[in-house]
């Protein structure tokens, strides 16, 4: 009977290729992942089981928290054009440099007359809590309605699309504030919008 020859190769597997690939994938994911941007008004969104994704473009976000409302819109051209038209309406002049800097802001919450100071501020000062008092939205001075209206017009002019509106409210926010914002949108016949929520498991 012939003896079975045991091969003397070592049982180690060469993992170099695997390691290479793993790190390649890792670097890919790190680079594509979007870094979390600091928010001007941090809110804790309520959770829901509905999982519709938010659109990533053509979106204006109204952030509601502590009875303040912050406004933000996606797209740099839309931002600077909106600022220009808002300035015209309220009689505030903005230079091209101002508009360029404003286009980098994700959200803001100041009166249009204080916008210049906000633009000139340093980034860390701007994000400090309490610096921005919120966009005025009462019936006498309803700048929020104008921001929404003008940004919708600008989107229509630039892209020919209707701007989507997302409402990002704090879970603890009392209903009257939310109601005021909903009323502003309804008055402009914007009846369909997104409520930003967190994720909740199905057995809620």
């Amino acid at each position, binding site marked *: 009977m012939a003896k079975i020859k045991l091969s003397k190769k070592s049982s180690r597997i*060469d993992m170099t290729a695997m*390691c290479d690939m793993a790190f390649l994938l890792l670097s890919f994911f790190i680079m594509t*992942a979007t870094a979390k941007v600091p928010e001007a008004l941090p809110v804790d969104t309520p959770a829901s089981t*509905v999982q519709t994704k938010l659109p990533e473009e053509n979106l204006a976000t109204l952030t*509601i928290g502590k009875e303040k409302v912050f406004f933000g819109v996606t797209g740099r051209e839309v931002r600077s054009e909106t600022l220009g038209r808002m300035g015209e309406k309220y009689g505030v002049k903005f230079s091209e440099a101002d508009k360029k800097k404003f286009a980098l802001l994700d959200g803001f919450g100041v009166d249009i007359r204080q916008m210049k100071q906000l633009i000139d501020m340093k980034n860390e000062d701007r994000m400090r809590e309490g610096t921005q008092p919120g966009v005025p939205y009462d019936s006498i001075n309803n700048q929020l309605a104008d921001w929404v209206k003008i940004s919708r017009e600008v989107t229509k002019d630039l892209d020919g699309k209707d701007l989507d509106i997302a409402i990002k409210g704090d879970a*603890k926010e009392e*209903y009257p504030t939310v109601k005021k914002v909903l009323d502003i949108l309804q008055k402009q016949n914007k009846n369909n*919008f997104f409520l930003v929520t967190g994720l909740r498991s199905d057995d809620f």
Partner: protein
Amino acid sequence: MAELNTGDGGGKKGGGKVRSKKSNPSVDLTAMVDLAFLLITFFILTTTLSKPQSMNLAMPDEPKIDDPVPPETPAWRTLTLVLGSGDKLVWYSGRTDGPPLDGPVVSGYGKTGVRDLILNKKAGVDAKNKADGADLEKSGITIIIKPSKKSNYKNLVDILDEMAITKVKKYAIVDITDADIKFLEDNKIY
């Protein structure tokens, strides 16, 4: 490959001492691969999960002056949820200008709260519609949501979520009336 050339044979050149042959010092990559895959998993999971979720909400058009008056929904087909303070709500069905058909009763949110009630009411309305031969799609249950000043945004989202879970097709957010506030006050959640 992850092995180092130890240059065997090179030592014999001098003709001096014979060195023992060193074993091939290959580097163990297992731990490194483990770590890399762990990080990959982490990044894959966080990038997809951190996309914000959202829920659609459609409100009715502002009524215009020359619009025809919309047809009234029969009282037995409605269920009103009045959102009060302290994460509690009051429900009733029917109208408030007399005693309601059912209720008013205090309840909580979620699975242990108002869910069974909504499902029961929905099944009841559907059964009656079937018996009457009415169109199930058109004349299903109508839920009226009335958030009070003391309720918060989370309550509203919870109730809208409840509509999605129980698959109620017709619901509306309506302004609160004095009669509804009285129900809340009677139950001490206003």
